[in-house]
């Protein structure tokens, strides 16, 4: 069974058509990059896939169950995590507390009102493990706002991984990071995905070096439609896609 599936998804904002009949099936084991010029509908697609926006028509299925517009929180509990283009953290919470929010979701314990967080060995172990994956183990007690920018980005991604999702959808995971650091972040990310057991990664990415270096499947969007969908070599060979979406650099 496919992991995540969008069938003939359309999304209108008023008269504006952001997605015009997108069908996309993501199988376990895939690293999918979504590329396309600004306004192609990449972020809308990510939002639809992660339950933030309901499609105007069409369906979204996760492991066979309909999840169109189910809400980000519910999908996060089911196993679809997402991270944001801009660094998104809880400024006043510590690194440990931030990760604990995700771990508690995974353990289905968020709603408990009288449990004590402090002294919970199982929680602490899970938080430490999540931090260690991203090299944040020594910073558990630091408030997120005091971290350097690169660590904030890592914390953002680390908290999504701490959900132990089956699939993770990232909107430009390396945006706002220097070119030199991009590869480093991607290495950490891919390594963490393997260790945590994430089955598939979907990312929106502009940097073609990252896209062609890591993906095993590339989806090119243009004006709300899928222009091309295939392995990197096929995309590189498609002159039309290269001209409209990829640009000179490929």
């Amino acid at each position, binding site marked *: 069974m496919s992991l995540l599936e969008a069938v003939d998804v359309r999304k209108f904002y008023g008269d504006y058509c952001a997605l015009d009949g997108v069908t996309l099936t993501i199988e376990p084991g895939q690293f999918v990059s979504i590329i396309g010029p600004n306004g192609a509908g990449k972020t809308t697609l990510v939002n639809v896939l992660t339950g933030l926006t309901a499609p105007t028509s069409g369906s979204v299925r996760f492991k066979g169950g309909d999840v169109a517009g189910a809400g980000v*929180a519910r999908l996060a509990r089911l196993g679809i995590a997402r991270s944001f283009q801009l660094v*998104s953290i809880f*400024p006043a919470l510590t690194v440990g*507390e931030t990760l604990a*929010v995700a771990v508690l979701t995974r353990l289905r314990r968020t*709603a408990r009102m009288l449990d*004590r*967080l402090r002294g919970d060995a199982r929680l602490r172990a899970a938080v430490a493990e999540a931090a260690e994956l991203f090299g944040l183990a020594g910073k558990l007690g630091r408030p997120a706002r005091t971290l350097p920018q690169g660590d904030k980005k890592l914390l953002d991604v680390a908290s999504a991984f701490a959900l132990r999702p089956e699939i993770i959808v990232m909107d430009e995971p390396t945006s706002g990071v220097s070119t030199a650091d991009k590869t480093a972040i991607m290495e950490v990310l891919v390594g963490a995905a393997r260790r945590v057991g994430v089955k598939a990664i979907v990312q929106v990415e502009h940097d073609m070096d990252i896209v062609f270096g890591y993906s095993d499947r590339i989806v090119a969007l243009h004006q709300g439609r899928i222009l091309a969908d295939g392995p990197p070599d096929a995309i590189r060979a498609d002159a039309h896609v290269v001209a409209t979406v990829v640009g000179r650099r490929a």
Partner: protein
Amino acid sequence: MTTRLLGAAAVAMLLLLPLAGRPYTTTLVLPAFGYGIALLGLNLLFGYTGLLSFGHALFLALGAYTTAVLTTRAGVRHLELLIPAAAVVAAAVAVPVGLLCVRYVKIYFGMLTLAFGMLFYSFLYKFYTLTGGDEGLRVLRPFLMGRSLDQMDAVAFLTGPYYFYALALLAAAVLLMWRIVASPFGLALRSIRENPVKAEALGVDVRRYRFVAFVLAAVFGGVGGVLLVIPTGLADPQLSYWTHSGNLVFMLLLGGFDSFLGPVAGAFVFILLQDAVMSVTPYWRFVFGAILAVVVVFVPRGLLGLLAPPPRALV
């Protein structure tokens, strides 16, 4: 460490006050018990979840009128019954109100809560037969632990058994709220305050948690309302007026909303300060307005924020 010492000293003072202090001072601090409980709830909403309610007095008024109606009309006098009754009434009102209010945040949330508070105010004011209109409704002295204390002198009752009863209730409320904020649920609320979008992405159902926090805050408000009107013996519509809600927020800010006990401290400081200023000048509102302005501009973390470091991390 210093905070613990200060806390212990405060508790000791409160325990000794009725024995050592003048009856005037003792009765003076009584409202602070009720306010303290209500503010614990309000702070769950503002300090922890990031929602500023300008209509929280609604729930105090609900608790107060529940007590008034039950003692005078229904003959229910046991405080052990009045308190759960007030909690239930407050929760019953908070459910529909909360469902509507938590759909909005910031200024809109504040305005909606204000409107609901005023709605209840005009209800109290206009439905004379049920609520006594602007004269309010009398609250009879409740039985404590099954015993009628009607024979007791009023001051003796208030500075004796009732004082300790209220103090114990406040202590219980503090402990309960402490467990709540230190729980996974409390952490989820703080994550919502910090960044609702991110909280949602990490599986926290933002609207549902805001709603639960709203209802919990209402219950604490209702219970606080009961304690508030027993010393005065009167429930009147002013309890639900928007300036009363404003005063609650004032106390919250005075004590500090990002320390756990700040709100309770705020209640005591407000009451004592009000008494002190009123004895000097009838224009206490002016002085208080100036104090509030200074607090807002210069010490937004409140008085306890000045004394204590920010709370320790829980994980």
